[in-house]
């Protein structure tokens, strides 16, 4: 039996042997045999000798560099802001655990940032991009693009939602407090 690109496979179906291909996404190798992990179609990369399965079912969410995530600022330290990651931006399925990611001061905004507290405050809802995933506890994020940054900010004095007044400036309509943030262009106050 020989599989070719486009073949429909189910979990455990034999795709080939490890002498032919390098097992790639959604495949696994067992005793020299490459098998499918999920329901989907086979994709053979003859140039790189890779074989993978393109899932036809919904698949569990997985954090990877380049993905946009939504989260909440949990802590703002001197050099890092910690984000409690709630979900992937364009996938509704839950992540396997509640990840915590860090935004380094140099990755928060374009240009020089004197104090990270001028950029993020605890409780802000942010959209960020994953830049590095190492294990489950070492995740780096950045917000230095136009469409990334704070989506919703709360006043540090009265916890009221703030309104956007200018680029990276927010204003509290209740206590007339003015603050600064790295705002996303999609800010909704």
């Amino acid at each position, binding site marked *: 039996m020989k599989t070719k690109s486009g073949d*429909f496979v*189910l*979990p*455990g179906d034999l795709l080939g042997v490890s002498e032919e291909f390098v097992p790639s996404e959604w495949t696994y190798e*067992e005793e020299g045999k490459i098998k499918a992990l*999920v*329901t989907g179609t086979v994709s053979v990369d003859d140039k790189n000798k890779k074989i993978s399965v393109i899932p036809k079912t919904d698949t*569990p969410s997985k954090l990877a560099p380049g993905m946009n995530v939504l989260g909440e600022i949990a802590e703002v330290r001197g050099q890092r802001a910690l984000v409690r990651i709630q979900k992937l931006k364009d996938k509704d399925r839950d992540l*396997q*655990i509640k990840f915590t990611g860090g935004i380094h001061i140099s990755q928060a905004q374009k240009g020089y940032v004197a104090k990270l507290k001028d950029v993020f405050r605890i409780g802000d809802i942010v959209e960020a991009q994953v830049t590095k995933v190492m294990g489950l506890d070492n995740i780096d994020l950045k917000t230095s693009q136009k469409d990334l940054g704070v989506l919703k900010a709360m006043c540090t004095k009265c916890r009221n939602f703030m309104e956007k007044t200018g680029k990276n400036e927010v204003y509290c309509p209740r206590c007339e407090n003015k603050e600064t943030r790295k705002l996303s262009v999609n800010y909704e106050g």
Partner: protein
Amino acid sequence: MIIIITLGKKEGSVKRADGRAFDELRPIKIEAGVLERADGSAYLEFGGNKVLVAVYGPREFHIRRFQKPDQAVVRCRYNMAPFSVDDRKRPGPDRRSVEISKITSEALAPAVFLEKYPRSTIDVFIEVLEAEGGTRCAGITAASVAMADAGIPMRDMVVACAAGKADDNVVLDLSEKEDKEGQADLPVAVMPRTGEITLIQMDGNLSSEEFEKALDLALEGCKKISEIQKDALKTRYGE
């Protein structure tokens, strides 16, 4: 005219209460992806059994002390609807359903690549809407289709089937009546490609020859059901 009445004891002539042959399964139907909000789901009809399964996850495991740092945990809840049996079943977990929940999660776990999702949980909810003997096997069979529907990475799809002894004959796939009045029941769950057995239970008495025969029969039954499982996914996602 002479009418000869023979009381055949040969296997081929064994007739069961519902007219099936000794190695005949009840009619079976599986549908994958029936629920909108679950990550994966399946609906199964197996004779008079009607089972609905929903799978969620891998997702965050809130009970921190039960998390495993290096792998996911398969949690399972088997539940019978109050209207699933002739007498009303008192709702809520009881001794029987707690046991079936446990053995179901243990039957499914070997097929899943748990180490891909450390600290998380995969939740399987099995709701028996109507019961007619062999619900644990029906639950396991439907649950693995639901897990495949959820896109959870698996080695194989676990399939379960029972064999047993009724009216002194070893038969496949006991109905409720045969289960209650019969002499033995032997549910078996297996990963059909490798033939690894993930669940085997027995109640009643079987001699060792009868046990061998019943096990072979159950494994044959599993193979047949496995094809129907695959067809369910093919019709949902295939060409």
